[in-house]
């Protein structure tokens, strides 16, 4: 049997679609860990990127740090983290946290770099004009910089998501579940159907994540096209402050 047949046979076997080791359960585990890692990364990288981009201070070190972060292999990071997390929690500290934190670390650089790049690249004249109209720093960030940088920021989230979804497979080496289980077990059990099936599922999930985020990105861009960007400033209750009505 060639590998296409093997893969199809494995994927279409109803036995592989049920129970705690079935495809749906592994898919949920995979998505859960990926989302948790992305959330941790976003909580760290978004504010940091916004601050650095807005103040234009520390951009060099931030990009440098992100580059170093990208250069560290995730699996090495998992090995480094493991003894510490295992000491705190013998169960989850072995099977979940090393993968979770390594995946968060993997997602931080693209989100951080794209966020600060997006903010930095907002038209300086626009920022100057808003400042001249009396925008506070917070308003400037919320109403000018973030909306204009949003497609670039989302691009960072998008590439981080694809990387994390594909790399979470490593968790199976340290006994986590997820779709990597099929790959690791497939190799160990010399079960090529399971191995290729796992690969196909991971690739599909990464493509779906990539596709849906690309769609979100496009929708935002289109919305921006219909409504000129200064428009949102003239919100009820805000008019008259900072002379925003001049734009309305």
């Amino acid at each position, binding site marked *: 049997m060639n590998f296409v047949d093997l893969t199809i046979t494995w994927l279409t076997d109803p036995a592989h679609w049920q129970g705690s080791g079935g495809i749906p359960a592994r898919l949920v585990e995979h998505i859960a860990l990926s989302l948790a890692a992305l959330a941790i990364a976003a909580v760290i990288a978004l504010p940091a990127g916004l601050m650095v981009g807005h103040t234009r201070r520390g951009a060099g070190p931030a990009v440098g740090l992100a580059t170093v972060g990208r250069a560290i292999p995730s699996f090495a990071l998992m090995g480094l983290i493991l003894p510490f997390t295992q*000491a705190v929690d013998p169960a989850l*500290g*072995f099977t979940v946290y090393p993968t979770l934190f390594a995946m968060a670390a993997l997602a931080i650089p693209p989100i951080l770099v794209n966020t600060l790049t997006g903010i930095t690249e907002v038209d300086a004249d626009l920022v100057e004009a808003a400042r001249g109209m009396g925008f506070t720093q917070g308003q400037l960030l919320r109403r000018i910089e973030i909306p204009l940088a949003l497609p670039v920021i989302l691009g960072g989230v998008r590439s981080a998501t694809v990387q994390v979804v594909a790399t979470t497979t490593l968790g199976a080496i340290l006994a986590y579940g997820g779709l990597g289980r099929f790959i*690791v*077990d497939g190799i160990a*059990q*010399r079960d090529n159907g399971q191995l290729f099936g796992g690969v196909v599922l991971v690739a599909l999930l990464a493509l779906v994540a990539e596709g849906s985020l690309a769609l979100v990105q496009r929708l935002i861009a289109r919305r921006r096209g219909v409504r000129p960007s200064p428009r949102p400033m003239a919100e009820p209750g805000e008019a008259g402050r900072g002379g925003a009505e001049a734009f309305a």
Partner: protein
Amino acid sequence: MRIFRGLALGASMLALISACSAGGGAANNPTVKIGSDGFYEAKVMAEIYGQALEANGYKVDRTGIGIGARKVSAPALESGQFDLKPEYIGSGLAFYTPGKQTGDPKNNQTQLQAVLKPKGITVLDYSPAADQNAFVVRKATADQYKLVKMSDLTPVAAQLKFGVATDCPTNPVCGAALKTAYGIDVTNATKLAACDTPMAQALLGKTIDVGELCSTQPDIAVNGWVVLQDDKQTQPADNLAPLVRDDLLAKLADKAAFQKILNDVSAKMDTATLTDLNKQIAVDKKDIAAVATAWLKTNGFVK
């Protein structure tokens, strides 16, 4: 003990004398090319056999030592890239005829010999030393639940966390054997690579309570862990035995003396000693050749 040593010494002396009496025989012998798998235990065994032969006047070529896993080393031996290789008879048999391996070393050796005979390879005597999958617990766990043998696990299995090799669920001598022989279900056990560091780390850090390790993994000795006796004999007997090419044996001046050297060495090695040698290499970072020499000296094979 002393008698044993004397016997071994006498045996090797005898081998030396008989080798010499064959008209300077050893000198006329072809060079013995030795090969092995890549991990340190296989390499130290190859080195031990090699040095024992050298002590008896044979010339040894070590190029093939550590050449790679069985997928590489087995064809290399079959094609004559080297003449001698230490083999694990249970896994070696499973490599050629999967599922035929048993818990009886004699049986495994006989079957392996039958498979290798047409390939022109002889299986010499197997050693008491074996490296097989072993279920290991921390000393504290063993004391707490009074665990000595695998059957002791049965009543307390639900209270313990198991770590098994990734191939365990589909491996007849692992998942199925645990279930039928000991009534232990490892479906939801933590799954990690076989005989590797993460499993030892998981056991050390209490992620799991019972771990499937290799019986000679140095972590067991280093941490004072307890290997549970496989009282229902579910694991295949993976005793070590040298495999030798028949065309080399045919060219030797004294085939019997050559085989005796190797058989005497195998007879003297045991699992505890092998575990200790592994520890000296992996933990104490000693040189493999030096570890081999020290062991051969202690046992009177080398002066």
